[in-house]
């Protein structure tokens, strides 16, 4: 009975909220029957438009004091989307100029021949199969990041209000231990939680179920299509008479990109592992970054301001979803602009005039106006409100932020992709003299991320290098695709004396190398085993404690050994840092200024320090993993053992 009662409501809600709204709004911008959009662009833009609508719409009504419930959200969607549709239609009509020099350039749509269709079907099937097999063991809610994020989504859907991102901490002030009042935190951004909350409000799906991961799964798959579509247009944008057209074409680029990001390298970060790990912001960023680049590229190549408007809107949306992705995107766009201007230094005024004429149209200007008004009069992203930008800019201070080596990049992005990508970068730099936008886009995207990853000090980037490295695999993959296609298209066209068997053999060798490395990468990630039983035990214990405590009680639990411990807070909803948590042991060792109470209360509860911490913090319940941290409590006269299972034990302090 789960299918009609649980799954169908979720699926219907997902399709309407994530595509229905966006498709309706998109039809106000483009005539969908005769539009310059491929089917893949339609669903990608529909999804992104839906996110934009929900994120900004819910913030507007939330700040106006309206509560989030089915009625208010339905009103928002009904009235709001009709209004936006009207505005978009009006603006788009004026944006499409009658001046022939401004007429958007049309081009034939994406169209696979029979062989390419078979390849596409095989690739998409393999992609879904591999990711589903991986998620099969990780679909249950154990991931720490996801637990933290869903606390806020649940806070929104339960309270019906926008959340205040804050947490209490245990601090030592002048030698005295105390618990602070809730202090603002910048790690969470509203756009990561609003759609999930809306999905839950409508479908009443269980936060402990599959729906959050399925939502991220959808975004991950869409990001592959975004990359493939971007590849399609980039290759289309580079016409070379020296390349055999049956090899060098957009459709082949689409398929090869799908191969490099679909079945191969499908699981390790930043792909399926980010999905199961609940790295919501990054997963969104991995979709929005190529989508935004696609919009801007299409705007410039087709001289169509509607794409520019969409690109600006999605950029602004991304700023309300993930700070790091926005930061990276701004660097990428700056690099693209600078490289393009450098390549066209002799015709600078023409280039700038073209850009200005695209920008000075109703739709892009209206989007910019909306963005400015929203930013200053409705809400700023939390990381700007809390002035958190300063922490990302500056000379890298820790060793984890001083850059990765090429070997580390090869390990994370795949040595095949890296090797081919570097060849691709060379190819773009030296072999193409015609200075297409495609060249600027790909060179800018790849080069800036390489610099940010290898030498962040040159750009005053003070962010963990491994996090930036996760963004590198996408431009490397596309560069690799372009190089591979160009290589074989060139040789084929030139009818060089290379015997066909050598050409075929080299292609097969590269293919097998990529396949084996990509599959090995998948295989190394596929070895997760189910943690269902300990997780269910954690949930049972949490429910017990939630039923037998009140807001006057304080609880501490262990993060090192309890499975799914980050989800415990969802049973209480008494604050982001409720219960307190003993963090990973190395956090206490590497940061001597960190409070030590959360360590002492579990590791050494019977010492003077442990006792003092209990007294000052008021913690009166302790939750630990049964096989690890029970000896020190079992031997103590100060604690009663009130709950026990194979996996989790709960103690109560006797005061």
């Amino acid at each position: 009975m789960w299918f009609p009662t649980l799954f169908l409501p979720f699926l219907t809600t997902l399709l309407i909220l994530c595509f229905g709204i966006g498709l309706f709004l998109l039809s106000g911008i483009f005539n969908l029957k005769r539009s310059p959009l491929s089917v893949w662009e339609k669903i990608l833009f529909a999804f992104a438009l839906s996110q934009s609508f929900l994120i900004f719409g819910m913030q507007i009504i939330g700040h106006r004091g309206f509560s989030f419930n089915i009625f208010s959200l339905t009103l928002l969607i009904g009235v709001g989307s009709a209004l936006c549709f009207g505005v978009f239609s009006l603006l788009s009509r004026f944006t499409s100029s009658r001046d022939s020099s401004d007429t958007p350039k049309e081009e034939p749509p994406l169209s696979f021949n029979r062989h390419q269709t078979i390849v596409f079907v095989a690739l998409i099937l393999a992609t879904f199969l591999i990711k589903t097999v991986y998620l099969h063991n990780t679909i249950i809610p154990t991931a720490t990041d996801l637990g933290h994020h869903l606390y806020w989504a649940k806070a929104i859907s339960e309270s019906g209000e926008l959340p205040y991102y804050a947490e209490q901490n245990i601090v030592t002030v002048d030698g005295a231990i105390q618990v602070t009042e809730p202090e603002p935190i910048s790690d969470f951004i509203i756009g990561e939680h609003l759609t999930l909350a809306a999905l839950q409000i409508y479908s009443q799906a269980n936060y402990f179920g599959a729906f959050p991961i399925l939502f991220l799964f959808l975004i991950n798959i869409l990001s592959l299509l975004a990359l493939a579509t971007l590849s399609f247009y980039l290759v289309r944008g580079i016409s070379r008479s020296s390349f055999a057209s049956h090899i060098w074409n957009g459709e082949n680029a689409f398929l090869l990109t799908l191969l490099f990001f679909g079945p191969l390298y499908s699981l390790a970060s930043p792909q399926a592992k980010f999905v199961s790990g609940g790295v919501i912001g990054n997963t969104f960023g991995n979709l929005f970054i190529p989508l935004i680049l696609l919009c801007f590229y299409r705007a410039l190549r087709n001289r169509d301001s509607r794409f520019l408007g969409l690109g600006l809107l999605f950029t602004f949306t991304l700023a309300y979803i993930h700070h790091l992705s926005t930061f990276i995107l701004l660097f990428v766009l700056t690099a693209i602009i600078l490289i393009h201007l450098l390549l066209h230094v002799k015709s600078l005024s023409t280039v700038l005039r073209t850009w200005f004429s695209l920008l000075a149209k109703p739709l892009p200007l209206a989007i910019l106006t909306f963005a400015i008004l929203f930013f200053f009069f409705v809400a700023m992203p939390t990381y700007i409100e809390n002035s958190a930008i300063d922490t990302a800019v500056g000379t890298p201070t820790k060793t984890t932020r001083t850059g990765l080596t090429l070997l580390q990049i090869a390990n994370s992005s795949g040595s095949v992709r890296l090797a081919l990508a570097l060849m691709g970068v060379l190819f773009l730099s030296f072999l193409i003299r015609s200075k297409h936008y495609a060249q600027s886009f790909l060179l800018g995207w790849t080069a800036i991320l390489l610099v940010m990853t290898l030498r962040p000090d040159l750009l005053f980037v003070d962010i963990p290098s491994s996090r930036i490295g996760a963004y590198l695999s996408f431009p490397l993959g596309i560069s690799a695709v372009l190089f591979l296609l160009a290589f074989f298209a060139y040789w084929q066209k030139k009818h060089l004396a290379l015997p066909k068997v050598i050409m075929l053999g080299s292609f097969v060798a590269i293919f097998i190398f990529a396949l084996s490395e990509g599959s090995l990468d998948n295989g190394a990630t596929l070895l997760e085993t189910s943690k269902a039983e300990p997780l269910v035990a954690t949930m049972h214990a949490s429910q017990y404690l939630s039923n037998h405590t009140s807001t006057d009680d304080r609880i501490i639990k262990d993060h090192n050994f309890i499975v799914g411990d980050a989800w415990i807070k969802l049973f209480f909803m008494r604050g982001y840092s409720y219960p307190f948590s003993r963090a990973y042991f190395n956090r206490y060792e590497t940061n001597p200024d960190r409070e030590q109470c959360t360590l002492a209360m579990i590791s050494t509860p019977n010492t003077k320090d442990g006792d003092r911490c209990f007294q000052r913090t008021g913690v009166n319940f302790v939750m630990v993993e049964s096989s690890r941290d029970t000896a020190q409590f079992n031997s103590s006269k100060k604690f009663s053992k009130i709950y026990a299972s194979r996996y989790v034990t709960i103690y109560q302090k006797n005061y």
Partner: protein
Amino acid sequence: MSNRLLLILFFVLFITSSAFLFERSLNELDQEANKNWWTISFIRPDRVKNIDIVVSNYTEDTHFKYQILAGDTVIEEQGFEAPLGENRILLITPEKTPEVERVTVRVIHKDQQQELFRNYKLK
């Protein structure tokens, strides 16, 4: 195959994968399905002298035994049944709390045992 059909294929695959994963999640989070764990807990942890317990059984075997210990001495012992998926309540608080520093409730199930205890300050 037209682009529209490929799009339909894409959504069919997504819905199929999602349905499969959704069902998997429901099965995994079912406390009883293919599980082998059990818990004991005090019904009234806030009442210091109360040692009534609830046993939650998620194993196939329904046979249990409990013991009440005053210090190290077993003062009461009895077998009981706890069906799969049920919370079996045991009202075992003695009329008079033993004059010991620790009262323990021990539950034995197959080759495993779990204990709960209360510590008291003697006058």
